[in-house]
């Protein structure tokens, strides 16, 4: 038996090959059972899924020692873990993480609805013993994740502007980590929702897609500030379903929604919260059509990168607020100038439709409506972030208003959906509204 370091055997805890657990009653009757999940907690602790009131449960409450048998799904090497039961968690990050993972495992093994997590049983690992027997050599990793992280990190350091930072983050995931499908969502604290500001690897951009806290992999990661990683496809955490349910709950039609552009068959998913200190800034989401594409090591790398992204976003927002600079930031856009367009605003959710085509809603919708109103009234085209912050009609939150991110979202949606309206950055904290066609503004009375 060696001194326990769970780090060295993390691949055994991916669940590719089922684990078994032996416990013993106080009167000496052993019990052995399969365990759906042995989850890595830290280098000295693991957590086992508690799904049923079972003999195992009864035994560990009376005699808190157990032995687990785990096998590496890549090399086939097996280990015996001597465990001491400490306590059960029924809420919080570990529980949510295991619950999400269990949904993936259950749906993969045709047991969706049968598995329900009642608790996460936390055990101290007293010893780890390699079981003598055959194993395959560990394959060379597809990337050196430390090198990938370093390159991605350096690419971010060079950026002084939020829009490029968001895009560069996702480009680095592809270039350095080989992760081809990714999204970055920002957190709206007032609405308790997340909205997509950048995507990479999809046919449609999907910018503007929104999800509530706690909904699907992304919403759960945001709500509990914990990375959620699922190795197998699960309907329980799928966005097609989450979005539909949410629309039905809210009594809205799905017309004023940007659809989710993610993979229809995402067999691996990972959502990593983007934090600045302890505050939630957003979520980095990656997915793959491959099963078990993302490992514990990938998760560590992305969590570390997301930490840096969080601090960089927060840093750029502070600079944006404090400094004014003159250099124009974006190339002028050529706009359509023929004809008249009808712009309709619905006050109940600040959604804006142009010629019946949904553009945007929420705070960004309110901003667009405000800008167009000012333009219609007195022909204004030059605006500053500061005046939007001071504009009582927009009701931006006092702190963490994410105004920059909302303007990026608005600018990207206009870019995708409308060829006669654009927002052009003219310097730090300043931008220009460009209007090609004549607009007819129609305010709708709340339903």
């Amino acid at each position, binding site marked *: 038996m060696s001194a326990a370091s769970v780090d060295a055997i993390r691949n055994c805890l991916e669940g590719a090959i089922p684990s*078994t657990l*032996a416990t013993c009653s106080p009167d*000496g*009757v*052993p*019990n*052995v059972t399969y365990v759906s999940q042995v989850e890595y907690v830290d280098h000295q602790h693991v957590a086992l899924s508690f799904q049923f009131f079972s003999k195992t449960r009864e035994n560990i409450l009376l005699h808190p020692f157990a032995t687990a048998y785990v096998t590496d*799904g890549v090399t086939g090497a097996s280990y015996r873990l001597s465990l001491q039961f400490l306590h059960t968690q029924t809420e919080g990050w570990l529980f949510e993480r295991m619950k999400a993972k269990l949904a993936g495992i259950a749906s993969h093994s045709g047991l969706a609805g049968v598995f329900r997590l009642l608790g996460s049983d936390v055990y101290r690992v007293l010893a780890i013993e390699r079981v003598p*027997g055959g194993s*395959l050599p560990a394959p060379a990793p597809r990337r050196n994740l430390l090198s990938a992280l370093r390159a991605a990190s350096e690419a971010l350091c060079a950026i002084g502007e939020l829009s490029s930072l968001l895009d560069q983050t996702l480009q680095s995931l592809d270039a350095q980590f080989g992760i081809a499908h990714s999204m970055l969502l920002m957190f709206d604290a007032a609405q308790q929702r997340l909205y997509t500001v950048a995507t990479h690897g999809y046919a449609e951009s999907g910018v503007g897609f929104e999800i509530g806290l706690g909904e699907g992999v992304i919403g759960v990661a945001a709500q509990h500030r914990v990375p959620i990683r699922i190795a197998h496809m699960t309907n329980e955490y799928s966005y097609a379903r989450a979005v539909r349910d949410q629309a039905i709950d809210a009594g809205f039609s799905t017309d004023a929604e940007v659809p989710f552009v993610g993979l229809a068959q995402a067999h691996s998913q990972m959502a990593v919260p983007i934090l600045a200190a302890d505050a939630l800034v957003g979520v980095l989401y990656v997915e793959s059509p491959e099963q078990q594409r993302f490992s514990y090591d990938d998760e560590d790398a992305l969590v570390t990168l997301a930490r840096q992204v969080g601090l960089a976003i927060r840093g750029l927002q502070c600079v944006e607020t404090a400094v004014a600079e003159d250099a124009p930031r974006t190339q002028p856009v050529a706009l359509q100038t023929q004809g008249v367009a009808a712009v309709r605003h619905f006050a109940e959710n600040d959604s804006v439709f142009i010629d019946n085509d949904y553009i945007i809603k929420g705070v960004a919708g309110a901003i667009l409506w405000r800008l167009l109103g000012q333009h219609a009234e007195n022909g204004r085209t030059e605006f500053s972030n500061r005046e939007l912050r001071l504009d009582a009609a927009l009701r931006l939150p006092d702190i963490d208003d994410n105004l920059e991110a909302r303007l990026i979202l608005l600018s990207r949606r206009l870019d995708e959906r409308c060829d006669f309206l654009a927002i052009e950055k003219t310097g730090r904290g300043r931008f220009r509204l460009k209007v090609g066609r004549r607009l007819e503004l129609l305010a709708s009375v709340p339903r």
Partner: protein
Amino acid sequence: MSPDAPPEPLSEALSAFIQSGLSITVASRDGGMQTSLARCFGCRVSADRRRVTLVVQHAQAAAVLADVRTSGHVAAVFSKPSTNQTVQLKGQDAVVEPQRPFDQVCAGQHVEALLADLHSLHEYGEPLLRAVFQWDPADLCSISFTPSAGFIQTPGPSAGNRLP
């Protein structure tokens, strides 16, 4: 199977099931109630269906063999990977038996049947499965016991119930 009455023989169906090339893990415990675990490489049931013999490898199962000699207690879980059908059998009179001539045949048939079932899941490559279920013909021995209790462990509402 009732815990108090003398053990009944296994049903024909259960006997056939546990000999069909399943994933099998056996556990025992020492005098201090510490548990031990080992993977099994074969299972056979006596003609009267009262005795179950599990084939293990010495090197892998050293702790289990020592614990069986000390306590006589065993618990074994049998699971068919393709269907999740799972049962657990327990016994209190387990003994360690030296290698018998048919242990090698038993292990060979067991591993081939189990690999065939695992292949039907299309999840594991042949080299991985061969590594996990690699066995040394010279290293086999067995644990035999009279099943005194049996439990359904297929995930679902009946999990934990005694076998009918």
